[in-house]
């Protein structure tokens, strides 16, 4: 049976999970805080894993693919066929970016689900809205750059106005309405991408942590058995959600980039 002090200590350490802790503190340069915390370390870890996987596979290509090469081929077929296939011919060169986003987000989410001991200061980077917003900003800049460089400023902004075939008298107010709606939509898209990824990750983690805290607070078998089952089921569901959220992020990025490339058609 747990006493009250040990239960509260465990609850304290549960609260410490998924909290940003500085490892190397570097003083702030203006508004930017460049200190190395466990967020940064785990982002580097997932980037390192994705990079070394594809690096090693590309160095040892064989005619009969073994295990790792099959996985890499499946990922490449998925990226070129399913994800960027929607753009058509002009967008084929974006499959690098989309595949990188997909693999990076999936590896990050899956690493965050592995229970790590306390000294490792485990953290899931996508449970931090700054990280997901950074990823969404990448997609936003690619979208706007493609729109402005392919169609010019007049053509791209002109595609935000009302479609043709509207009676002349109604055109100015309709133009204004369409333009405002498109403009807000362009800013809302990366925001929704980031909040979706952040919310899904943090919701799963919070439910698991709350259930664990509940199990430790009332250390009796009536609470532990259903709550433990629920925690196991939520962990399995979290693995599923990790894959789905990575897929949705990359698929919606493809749709946004496609709508910027084919603006107004």
């Amino acid at each position, binding site marked *: 049976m747990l006493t009250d002090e040990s239960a509260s200590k465990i609850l304290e350490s549960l609260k410490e999970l998924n909290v940003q802790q500085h490892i190397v503190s570097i003083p702030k340069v203006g508004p930017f805080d460049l200190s190395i915390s466990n967020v940064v370390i785990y982002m580097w870890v997932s980037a390192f894993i994705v990079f070394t996987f594809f690096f090693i596979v590309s160095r040892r290509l064989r005619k009969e693919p073994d295990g790792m090469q099959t996985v890499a081929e499946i990922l490449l077929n998925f990226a070129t066929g399913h994800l960027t296939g929607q753009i058509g011919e002009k967008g084929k060169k974006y499959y690098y970016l989309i595949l990188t986003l997909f693999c990076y987000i999936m590896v990050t989410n899956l690493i965050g689900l592995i229970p790590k001991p306390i000294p490792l200061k485990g953290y899931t980077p996508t449970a931090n809205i700054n990280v997901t917003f950074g990823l969404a900003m990448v997609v936003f800049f690619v979208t706007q750059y493609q729109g402005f460089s392919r169609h010019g400023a007049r053509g791209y902004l002109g595609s935000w106005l009302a479609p043709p075939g509207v009676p002349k008298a109604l055109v100015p107010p309709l133009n204004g309405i369409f333009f405002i709606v498109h403009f807000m939509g362009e800013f809302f898209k990366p925001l*929704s991408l980031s909040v*979706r990824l952040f919310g899904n990750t943090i919701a799963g983690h919070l439910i698991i942590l709350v259930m664990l805290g509940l199990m430790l607070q009332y250390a009796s078998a009536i609470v532990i058995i259903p709550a433990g089952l629920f925690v196991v089921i939520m962990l399995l569901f979290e693995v599923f959600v990790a894959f789905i959220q990575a*897929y*949705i992020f990359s698929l*919606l990025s493809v749709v946004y980039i496609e709508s910027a490339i084919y603006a107004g058609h």
Partner: protein
Amino acid sequence: MDAETAARLAAGIGMGLATIGPGIGIGLLTGRTAEAIARQPEASADIRTAFIIGLALAEALALYAFVIAIILLFVA
């Protein structure tokens, strides 16, 4: 009723109300998906893609309310 109690109450009620809309939406979506796959099983890959997109977009609406509830609980 002070600010902290009001914030917790708002978080609870708001999150509860926010799951009504996406719940109905996802239920309708899944029903139509099942019908469409039953009518034409050859197109099930395209239908499944559209289903997953619709699922994520509907889920995101509930998640906006979840993020606001988290902010209300932990900051106020």
